[in-house]
C-alpha cells in the first residue's frame, strides 16, 4: 500500500456524499415547490431520460423532482465507485476487490430490476 494520508479517502467519500445530497436536495426543493405552485398533484411516470431532461429544463415540477430522486439514488453507487478508485490508487488491492465485487453485484441487481 502507498503511504498516503490515511484520511484522504474519508474526505473523498464525505465530499461525494455531500455533493450528491446537495444536488438532489436542491433539485427536490425546487421541484416540490414548483409542483405545489403549478398544482401538479399527480406526476407522470417518465420512461425516457431525454423527455425527463427536456421537461426539467422547462422547469416542470414533476420532472425536476424526478431528476432529484434519481440523483439521490445514484449517490451511494457513486460512493462505491469512489472507494474502488481510492483503494486502487492506494494499491490496497484486497479492499479494491471488495469494492469491485459490490459494484458488480449492484450492476447485476440493477439489471435484474430493469427486467
Amino acid at each position, binding site marked *: 500500500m502507498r503511504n498516503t494520508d490515511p484520511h484522504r479517502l474519508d474526505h473523498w467519500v464525505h465530499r461525494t456524499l455531500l455533493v450528491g445530497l446537495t444536488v438532489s436536495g436542491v433539485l427536490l426543493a425546487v421541484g416540490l415547490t414548483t409542483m405545489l405552485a403549478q398544482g401538479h398533484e399527480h406526476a407522470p411516470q417518465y420512461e425516457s431520460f431525454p423527455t425527463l431532461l427536456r421537461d426539467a429544463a422547462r422547469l416542470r415540477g414533476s420532472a425536476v423532482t424526478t431528476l432529484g430522486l434519481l440523483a*439521490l439514488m445514484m449517490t451511494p453507487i457513486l460512493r462505491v465507485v469512489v472507494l474502488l478508485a481510492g483503494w486502487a490508487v492506494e494499491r490496497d488491492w484486497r479492499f479494491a476487490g471488495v469494492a469491485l465485487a459490490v459494484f458488480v453485484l449492484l450492476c447485476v441487481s440493477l439489471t435484474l430490476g430493469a427486467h
Partner: protein
Amino acid sequence: MEVTPVNALLLLAAGGVTGVLGAILGTGGGVFLIPLLVMVLGVPMHEAVATSIVSVIATSSAVASTNVERGIANMRLGMTLEIATALGAIAGGLTAAVLAPRSLEVLFALVLVPTALLMWRGRTEKSADSAADDATKPATSSSSNSPSPLGGSYFDPAVGRVSYNVERLPAGLAVAFVAGNLSGLLGIGGGVFKVPALHLLCGVPVKAAAATSNFMIGVTAVASAFLYYGNGMVMPGVTAAAVLGVLAGSALGSVLNRSIGGRAVSRLFAVLLLLVAAQMLARALQGK
C-alpha cells in the same frame, strides 16, 4: 395521495422524525416512516414502501457523510458486509414471489424480541456497548492487540479514542445477507438487524456499529429503489417531501448523536426493536 401544501408539511415532519431517529440509531428509518405514512397520512402500502426505500438512501447518505468524516463509520468492514447484503438483496428479489412476507414478518418479530433484550443489557465482555465502558481504557491499552484489517478506531468526545477488532465475521456476513434479503421485501434498510449483529456478534462498539450500518444501508436500498421506481411506485411529490424532511432530521440527529452515550443508544435501540417486533406481528396477524 395528493401533494397539497398541508400534506407536504406533514410529510416533511414525518421525514424529519425519521431522519433524527435514523441518525442516532443507525437505521435508515424505514421502520418509523412506513407506519407514519400508512396509518397517519393514508399512503397506500406499496407506495409507502417505495417512499421509505428512497428515504432510507437519504438518511444513509446524510449520516454516513458526517460519520465517515469523523472516522466513526468503518468503511472497510461496511464494504465487506455489503457483498453479503447485495447478494441477499438479489436473492430476495428473485425469491420474493415464492415467499410469504407475512410468515417472514412473524419469524423476524420472534427473533427481534430476544435481540432487544440482549441490546438492552449490552455486551458485557470488552464492554463495547458504551463508549464509556469501551474506551475509558487509554487507546494504548488496545494496541497490545494490533487491530485486524477490518478493525477500527475513532474519537469519542465523551471518553477519548476507542479501538476495536472485529470478531465472528462469518456471523456478521450471514446477518448482512438476511438484512439485504429483507430490505426489498419490507422496504426497510435492515439496520434493525445489522446494528445488533455488528455490536453483539462482531464486538463493534455500538456507536461504530450504528455508523457502519448507516454507511451500508444506502447501497442496500439502492437496488430495491430502482426496482420500485421502474414499477412506477415512487410518487415524486410525496417522496420529495419525505426526503427533504429526512435530510433536515438527519443533520439534527447527527448533532444530537455527539452528546448521546453508547449505553443510551443501546437502550433506545432495544426499545425500537420491541416496537418493530410488535408492528410486524400486528401487521402479520391483521393480514395487511
